């Protein structure tokens, strides 16, 4: 049975997918994950879940965020100096996400 493995670097972080292991049950999957994924990289916690329990939708099935122009939902569209630092921070996170999204669409998938 295949188990997908998610590793959290430090407390409070998200668990991010880092690979999978082959194991007969959850306990052994955790043990193998520990050995294969938690040995060298900084690890605070690991999750394992049976691969067949994971649902997926990808760019072949859908156009994420749609294909119409939705610039109205981005902070960058509104050309004003940010009122406060937290607004500025949000805008720069959005700008980064938008840039990455566009690069991915242009680059094809």
């Amino acid at each position, binding site marked *: 049975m295949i188990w997908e493995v998610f590793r959290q670097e430090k407390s*409070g972080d998200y668990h991010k997918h880092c690979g999978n292991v082959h194991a007969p049950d959850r306990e052994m999957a955790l043990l193998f994950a520990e050995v294969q994924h938690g040995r060298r990289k900084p690890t605070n916690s690991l999750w394992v879940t049976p691969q067949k329990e994971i649902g997926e939708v990808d760019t072949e099935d859908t156009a994420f965020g749609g294909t119409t122009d*939705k610039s109205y939902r981005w902070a960058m569209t*509104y050309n*004003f100096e940010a009122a*406060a630092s937290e607004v500025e921070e*949000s805008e720069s996170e959005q700008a980064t*996400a938008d840039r990455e999204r566009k690069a991915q669409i242009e680059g094809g998938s």
Partner: protein
Amino acid sequence: MDIEEVKQRAGPREFSPKDEMPEEYRKAATRMIQFHANSEIMGAYLEKPFIRQAPSLDRKLAFSAKVQDEIGHGQLLYRAAESLGIKTRDEMLDELAEGKGKFLNCFHYPMESYVETPMIAFFVDGAAMRRQATLKSTSWEPYAHAMDKVCFEEGFHVKHGEAILYELMTGSKKEQEMTQEAFEKWWPRIIQFFGPTNEKSTHHGFASEVGLKQMSNDDLRTAFLNAYIPKAEKYGLEIPDEPRISKNDDGTYEVVEEDLDWDEFFTIAKNDYEPGVGQINGRKAAQDAVEWVRESLDSHENRLYGSSQPQAAD
């Protein structure tokens, strides 16, 4: 873990569902997150009519995206609250419908005219964002995680609100006057957004000792005023004479409390303020109308997986 240990360890994202948290902590966190979640939902209902009433297609689209975001924030936050094991999401939604769930003062006031929308979308969202930015380092990890996504999205809300304010304040004389009037009506409510000064806030002490709350009401209010008074003035809004606000040498602000209507504020806090009751009942009607959807989803889930009660109270 006992309360003493909680206070000692209290730091950003320190506690998660894996920790045995004392009931006092879990109850305080539930109260705070549920209040926050309720506010997101009630704010969304307040703005919903402006998807139709907004004067252009762009504005309608932006309002619809924003309202959708706010409902999403509510859902994220109910999940974060649910993870404390005190109340389920359904219980919290029912409490809101029954008038037992508490939420922000500003969302108890109906919004009648389009010129009022920047009062919420710029000033109230701005005030909320100030607070939310500090909550990225709250001690309950699922709450902090929810804030990552919420703050990511909020920048659009505030800037969209600012764009509307700019448009109105550079519009016709009539528009400018109506916007100034709306500002005068909303300004005291916006100041009260941060609640009374610390001494009167009953839950502040404990919530900050255990790291749930990261900044005092007074500091939040000061930070807000520092950023948003200049913006209001820039667009030609006149700050009303009352409440009297004075700036201290250290950059903090002093708001003369007697100039604000605290009777109204505390009536609102009890959900007894008449126009606010209308807002609550309006949302209840919407919740009742789609009860059949929840029922059919639940029975579908039960058929597939058995009982669907998520993390019910212990």
